[in-house]
């Protein structure tokens, strides 16, 4: 389990555009760095990030990103979303060595 830090503005007004920020603990090892003995450390990165919005039995991917080794350790991604109705934001990170992490945050639109 990796630690995540997701920031969603609380109780946005209907139809406002909010910025959603997602930070996750991960080394994002490039696969290009030698270790202390000079051996290349195997690549270990998050390859994909996805955010879904679910409301009233409907679920859509609202944002997704393919990450490469040039993304910094402990990846931070911020994107936007128009808050039209309350629902659940589902975050998913997947990567090398079967890495997977899922989080949900409820969105209450006022």
């Amino acid at each position, binding site marked *: 389990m990796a630690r995540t830090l997701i920031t969603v503005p609380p109780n946005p007004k209907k139809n406002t555009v909010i910025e959603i920020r997602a930070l996750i603990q991960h*080394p994002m090892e490039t696969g290009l760095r030698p270790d202390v003995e000079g051996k290349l450390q195997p690549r270990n990165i998050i390859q994909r990030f996805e955010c879904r919005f679910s409301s009233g039995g409907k679920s859509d991917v609202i944002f997704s990103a393919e990450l490469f080794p040039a993304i910094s350790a*402990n990846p*931070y991604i911020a994107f936007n979303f128009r808050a039209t109705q309350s629902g659940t934001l589902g975050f998913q990170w997947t990567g090398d060595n079967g890495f997977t992490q899922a989080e949900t945050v409820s969105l209450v639109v006022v």
Partner: protein
Amino acid sequence: MVFIWLLPATFAAIGTEACAAEEAANKAGNKITDSRKSGYDFMSASTQALQNDDSQNPAMLWVKDGEALWGREAGKDKKSCASCHGAAPKSMRGVAARYPAIEKKTRRPINLQQRINLCQKDHQHAAPFAPETQEMLRIESYVGMQSRGLAITPPRDARLAAFTQKGKVQFEQRMGQLDLSCADCHDNHAGKKLGGATIPEAHPTAYPLYRLEWQSLGSVERRLRNCMSGVRAEPYPYGAPEFVELELYLAARAAGMKLETPGVRP
């Protein structure tokens, strides 16, 4: 002539009694000009932005883990930090700002990590976290953050003076194959460039901090060890008395400056 003689005297006073003088001045309501700069002030705006906003600060990942550790039971009595100390935002407020401090039994100074270890051993009867491990950095950053915004306040404890003085001697002692002291760079050339990087004034204002170079959180001792290997000296082991003395001197030197923990540095 008199004026010329006064100058070195003034500098000496700033070096040793800055904290007392500043505190007195602050109490009297007269702001004395403080030209000291935190490492933060030397960073680019985009790196500063990472520290300014907790939702962007990668160090917060460690702080959040530390918050969970604070409430985690450990040892044979199944006690957590919270069992004794309650809510950290209240009980830990100001603690990091006054360490290193004298430990009652040994009458020697210990730093915050060593204080945490003593609590683990004596009160939790649990295995202490080794220095610089992820768990230690998590709990230290969580405790440290409770003093964010407070001034660094070394204890008014006469027993510390000799240790602080030893730290000062260390700070000014040349070492390593490059034959450089801490003071050579951080007192005499602060603000100037070393390669592409600006030499900061070496104030421990934000530890433990997320260093972009490390791609991780690290303690002030990791930073000190870096500097020592930088001048090609053999670094002291973590928790060495020499480091605690150096930390004492750094705290005295930075007394009155605000804590930024958990900070971000290049």
